[in-house]
């Protein structure tokens, strides 16, 4: 196995594809329908969305790597339990780090840090990729999918924060003079259902540009 590893370059075209495919054509949210719950719930403001993306990135990349290392020694009957234990251990680490270094954001994310455990992206990638592939491609696949997840979160959160509170990353963007002319923040954008419409618009744009993705 080590010999094969050496023959294939670290960033061969195949490996680069693992990294870039999930960002567009094989996006975890808009194509694979994985990890929707957290994508919708943490996107009211940009900062929690970025922190959430980084947490998921850490868990999915490291988890993919660990599972790929152990893939030959996991009996298939109990693989779900093994995977859950790996994920839960990583999520506990992430949760403790967040509580220590970013307490405010960790409070805003509330239960959604814990819910990374059941985030389907992670289980989905373990099942679909890490159980059959070597550690290095699995690590790349984890990063690729996490990036695909992250950009959707960031785009949705950017627009929701901009229109909902006129700010980006907590900094006021829309100037006071515009408000004086009668502009008002759109309170509807902050409410949960608008996240669904935002993701639906992204899906609509993506699928109109790329006809292959259209369902039946």
């Amino acid at each position, binding site marked *: 196995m080590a010999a094969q590893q050496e023959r294939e370059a670290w960033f061969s075209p195949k490996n680069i594809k693992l990294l870039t495919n999930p960002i567009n054509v094989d996006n975890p949210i808009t194509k694979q329908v994985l990890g929707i719950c957290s994508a919708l719930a943490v996107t009211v403001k940009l900062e929690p969305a970025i922190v959430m993306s980084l947490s998921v990135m850490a868990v999915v990349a490291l988890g993919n790597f660990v599972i790929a290392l152990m893939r030959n020694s996991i009996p298939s009957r109990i693989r*779900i339990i093994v995977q*859950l234990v790996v994920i839960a251990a990583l999520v506990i680490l992430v949760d403790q780090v967040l509580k220590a270094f970013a307490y405010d954001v960790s409070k805003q994310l509330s239960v959604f840090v814990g819910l990374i455990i059941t985030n389907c992206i992670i289980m989905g990638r373990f099942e679909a990729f890490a159980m059959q592939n070597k550690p290095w491609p699995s690590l790349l696949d984890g990063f690729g999918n996490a990036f695909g997840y992250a950009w959707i979160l960031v785009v949705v959160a950017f627009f929701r924060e901009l229109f909902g509170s006129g700010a980006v990353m907590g900094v006021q963007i829309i100037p006071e003079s515009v408000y004086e002319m009668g502009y008002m923040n759109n309170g509807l954008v902050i409410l949960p259902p608008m996240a669904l*419409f935002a993701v639906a618009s992204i899906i609509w744009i993506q699928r109109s540009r790329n006809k292959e993705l259209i369902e039946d």
Partner: protein
Amino acid sequence: MQELVNIFVKSIFVDNMVFAYFLGMCSYLAVSKTVKTSVGLGAAVIFVLVITVPVDYLMLKYLLNPGALSWLGEEYASVDLSFLSFIMFIAIIASMVQLVEMVVEKFSPSLYASLGIFLPLIAVNCAILGGSLFMQQREYQSIGEATVFGIGSGIGWFLAIVAIAAIREKIRYSNVPPALRGLGITFIITGIMGIAFMTFMGIKL
């Protein structure tokens, strides 16, 4: 008693798992193609939530919370294991799902056949883990409250998935723009249903 009714109604309508917190969206989107299967999955979710939320409550109260180990003796009174709650919850959920699967298979093979693959999938449904985590966060005072919360959020999830499945069965005959077909239109319908459910938000009990 009034408190229990309050939690029950609130967890079904006001704090609906799907429309207010987007929990269990993955299976909600994937299994809502026909009403029949969504009824089966919804019932299974109610069942598992009713069991796991009270069990997790007992775990928190007698094992994990700060000072919960004081029944072991004075010297354990200061132990705080609450950072272990994630791994504990998911282990309980996974084993409970396994147990429920075996019991159903033994005593009601017909129900087992109709639920089929959905039972094991429930272990990774975020509505279940979310139920336990919300129970921990909201600090319910007794096991009765925790159980009622579990039943209520299960019923709320059941209502949501059956409703979307019924709409999706009808919408198959409509002329949806090609790029929105399938996933896109389901998102938009869920959003509209979410807005409708928001009318319950003003209710004070």
